[in-house]
């Protein structure tokens, strides 16, 4: 059982990381969610083997499963859930402003860069990013 959970956790982390590396905001959101689930499952498995429900008098103490990781996982699930909801709201807001969900560049960074290099380089790199985002869409 633990092996299965550990495997599931690994898959969640791997897919989550891959999603995070995309330039589309919606995919980043999903990636963050997947990674959060992976971490929560890991927290749940940290208590070791499952057993009887830990209520005194229902089973011998040695058979109990560890209740603490379950409590911790519950707490962290609620927190991850809340923050993800906030992120979704922010994404909605971003979509309302730009009508697009590509993560934008920092304008100020561009400005600073443009002071030291020619504007053409900046323009070219912007062009390249647009193409990259378009490529990702096609995938």
């Amino acid at each position, binding site marked *: 059982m633990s092996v299965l959970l550990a495997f599931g956790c690994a898959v969640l982390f791997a897919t989550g990381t891959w999603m995070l590396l995309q330039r589309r905001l919606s995919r980043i959101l999903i990636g963050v969610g997947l990674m959060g689930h992976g971490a929560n499952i890991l927290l749940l498995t940290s208590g070791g083997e499952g057993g009887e429900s830990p209520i005194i008098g229902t089973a011998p103490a040695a058979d109990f499963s560890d209740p603490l990781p379950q409590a911790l996982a519950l707490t962290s699930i*609620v927190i991850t859930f809340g923050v993800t*909801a906030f992120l979704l*709201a922010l994404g*909605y*807001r971003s*979509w*309302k*402003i730009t*009508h697009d969900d590509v993560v934008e560049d920092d304008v100020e960074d561009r400005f600073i860069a443009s002071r030291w290099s020619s504007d053409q380089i900046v323009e070219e790199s912007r062009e390249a990013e647009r193409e990259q985002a378009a490529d990702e869409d096609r995938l």
Partner: protein
Amino acid sequence: MTDSTRDEPDVQRADPRMLILDTSIKVLFPSILVLAVYFLFAGHNRPGGGFVGGLMVGAALALRYVSGGAEAVRTTFRLPAHVLLGTGLFIAAATAFVPLLFGESILEHGDIEFDLPVFHHVKVTSALPFDVGVAIVVIGLILMAFAAFGDERSDQPGAEDDGSDNQRAKLWVRR
């Protein structure tokens, strides 16, 4: 937020109401609320608790949203969402705080047991007010979420000016 829409929530809706949905929700809504209250009180020793109870109420509100839109959710409770949220948070934080006044440590709890005519033997722990507080916080939050994002008219980009959020979220922006 004009008062005419408050009286007749259906006026603004483009699609016709679905009779089966609306009728079944009329039956379901109070039963879910009862279940939520049960979860809230059973929470100390059995599955349930304030968070679950609050979420159940949230689910019931979601059903009302499906049938009547944001307006139906808004008119469910008389109290504004932020008052609910604040009261719940206050109750929960105060439950943690009160034991300090009696020289106990924070979050310390106790219980009393007594007999009631219908319920027979009842055990009430001081964790109950905390749970009630949590439930109210969750309800308040869900109401606010529906108020901020539940308005169908704001779903189309460009339906309103892009810079400002929709009307309901303006509850939080003072004029």
